[in-house]
């Protein structure tokens, strides 16, 4: 349905959607990804030929579309996906960046990586098996990472006679479960990735389904947020001071707006110092503008010459975050070396990196049965848990629930630079769940 022969100007007005896929090993994730790429004509002839050639040399009769996405020698040899890969495809309405994440239990960190930048997550379920442990795990990670939109793709509908009750039961169970975790928007779509039902083309086998296909939904889901509801945040990346004859007095604070919008004339506070000024000008990559919003990269000039450097945060004077040296967070441990109580680490938050110490690890979540394990002492690879960290300098930190960008941080090993842990500041995510949500009894995690 999507040809690429659109005029250039038409294509350049399209928006960009970043999304991630999650699914167990045999749920048909590769087939779904392959079909999205193939039917959007993003698999080109030479790539297909390479796949066909490689498949034949392995003795396979049909081209193995997984070879399109398994880019490393070790992945092709072992037939598994080791690491996140990024895929690109486009329709006339939108361009897509797909974080293709491995489905194995032991690769939770990869799903966290893929979901961290995603605005939408597709969770695959096999219609024959329904909601299983791995589905709950994926829903939990999507909720934890605050992915704004979740699609439940109930796959292999062809193997359950395209029966509506099968789909309805799975959709209802998943929706209740995910809503209890605080997932804000869930769209359930019955598909057969193999047969092509409701992936790109509407299914001829499921008259009872009146919703969008997967691609239609991806094309129309909103990608920008309500700016009036966001706390405006601007982490200073770099100070631009040309000191040239042409610009002797120019002093601009370069950065990418992390959340909300900034306007010329607005009163602002600079954290952590707490100094105040007003915005004298905003330069949006060569153009002077009156207003700029996330995620634009801009340069802000202030009316007063105050001491500001990389790592500071500019926020509206009326809506500045509190600064703190005590960080409580839910984390996903992403390194092979463990994280222990008492460990000295570096904490990278927006453009600021500070020394820190792990004061406590109150709990660890057992992903298999979603039970909590108190005081585990340490976290190992792929563990999700709660940590308490004390920093050497104050941070202007938001709750991750309020801002993914200014509520997230990394813990880094100061000895070798390894990224240890992905952190999400604030109360445990389940606490934000709708109290009225059904079937929440077993989901009140307080880890």
């Amino acid at each position, binding site marked *: 349905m999507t040809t*690429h022969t659109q*005029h*250039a100007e038409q294509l350049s007005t*399209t928006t*960009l959607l970043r999304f991630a896929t999650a699914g167990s090993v045999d749920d048909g994730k590769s087939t779904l990804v392959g079909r999205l790429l193939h039917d959007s004509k993003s698999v*080109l*002839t*030479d*790539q297909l030929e*390479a796949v066909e050639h490689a498949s034949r040399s392995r003795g396979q009769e049909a081209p193995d579309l997984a070879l399109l*996405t398994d*880019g*490393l*020698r*070790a992945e092709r040899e072992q037939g598994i996906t*080791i*690491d*996140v*890969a990024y*895929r*690109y495809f486009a329709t006339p309405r939108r361009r897509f960046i797909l974080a293709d994440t491995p489905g194995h239990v032991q690769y939770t960190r990869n799903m966290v990586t893929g979901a961290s*930048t995603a605005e939408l997550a597709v969770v695959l379920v096999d219609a024959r098996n329904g909601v299983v442990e791995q589905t709950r795990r994926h829903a939990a990670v999507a909720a934890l990472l605050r992915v704004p939109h979740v699609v439940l793709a109930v796959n292999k509908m062809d193997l359950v006679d395209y029966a509506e009750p099968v*789909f*309805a039961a799975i959709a*209802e169970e998943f929706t209740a479960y995910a809503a209890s975790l605080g997932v804000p*928007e869930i769209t*359930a779509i019955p598909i057969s990735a193999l047969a092509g039902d409701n992936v790109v083309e509407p299914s001829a086998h499921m008259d*009872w*389904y*009146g*919703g*969008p296909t997967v691609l239609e939904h991806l094309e*129309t*889901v*909103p*990608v*920008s947020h309500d700016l009036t509801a966001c706390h405006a945040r601007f982490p200073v*990346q*770099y100070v631009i001071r*040309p000191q*040239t004859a042409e610009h002797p007095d*120019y002093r601009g604070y*370069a950065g*990418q707006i992390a959340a909300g*919008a900034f306007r010329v004339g607005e009163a602002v506070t600079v954290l952590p110092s707490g100094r105040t000024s007003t915005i004298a000008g905003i*330069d949006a*990559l*060569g153009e002077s503008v009156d207003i700029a919003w996330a995620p*634009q*990269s801009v340069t802000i000039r202030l009316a007063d010459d105050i001491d500001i450097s990389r790592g500071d945060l500019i926020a509206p004077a009326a809506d500045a975050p509190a600064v703190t040296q005590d960080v409580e967070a839910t984390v996903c441990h992403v390194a092979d070396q463990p994280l222990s109580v008492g460990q000295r680490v570096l904490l*990278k938050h*927006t*453009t600021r990196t500070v020394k820190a110490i792990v004061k406590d690890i109150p709990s660890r979540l057992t992903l298999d049965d979603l039970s909590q394990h108190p005081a585990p002492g340490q976290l190992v690879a792929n563990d999700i848990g709660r940590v308490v960290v004390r920093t050497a300098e104050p941070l202007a930190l938001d709750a991750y629930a309020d801002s993914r960008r200014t509520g*997230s*941080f*990394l813990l*880094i090993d100061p000895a*070798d*630079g390894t*990224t240890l842990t992905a952190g999400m500041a604030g109360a445990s995510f389940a606490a934000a769940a709708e109290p009225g949500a059904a079937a929440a009894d077993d989901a009140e995690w307080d880890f």
Partner: protein
Amino acid sequence: MTTVATMSEGTDNPYALSHLDSLESEAVHIFREVAGEFERPVILFSGGKDSIVMLHLALKAFAPAPVPFTLLHVDTGHNFPEVLEYRDRTVARHGLRLHVASVQEYIDAGKLRERPDGTRNPLQTVPLTEAIQQHRFDAVFGGGRRDEEKARAKERVFSLRDEFSQWDPRRQRPELWQLYNGRHAPGEHVRVFPISNWTELDVWQYIARESIELPQIYFAHEREVFNRNGMWLTAGDWGGPKDHESVETRQVRYRTVGDMSCTGAVDSDATTLDAVITEIAASRLTERGATRADDKMSEAAMEDRKREGYF
């Protein structure tokens, strides 16, 4: 009828960025992160379209101040004269400083040996990595895009390299949110790919939108070429054609610019940016599949070269 959630039709939010604005904003953020965190960054600049776009983004990221990076070109000795001319003119126009690492000098000094097939692209790795060590560059910007090749699809925006410049895909750091971890030990460096998330079409659309000048070989022109392994190579002193290969004049253009010995031209009558974009949008071949011999050597050719220190 059992749609669980409703679909939102209205996506004409005035605060939605176009895809080019999103990609530009992300790339500028990456340039500024490197400027803020590293001591001695350098931009690999070949005069090809990807590095031209990178330089354009860097100019915008730090305006009205100058780009706070030097440039590095690994000259294979078989580069297109039009591209070298463009390179030098661009460097002069923006008052930049250019380092050149020369493959020819390495061959002349006996430190590298010409390959039997005459291809010099794989020979670039040694001069590149030695230039990085010699100048103690700690961050090296490359124009690599993840859509180019399957091993590239696995590449991080910040890619840590050891003291031998090696890439180990199993030891890559997870890259979370926009929090790029550039920590590295002395002797190690980080390869940085600001346009990782761009596709070939994005690059061309951006060039058109920003009216960026390109070397003329990107547009259709008459050229003396000969066919080798299914590719139209430019005839010249570098080593072609051989006896059994015959030269003909064809209307061609280049989709990618590299060493003359392994970069093929495509038949084309696209003489303008709009025509090039239309042609690319309709093409059924990838950029590298169509025109790069070095990637056809084996299924893992790119991965193997990246492991050795290539971009």
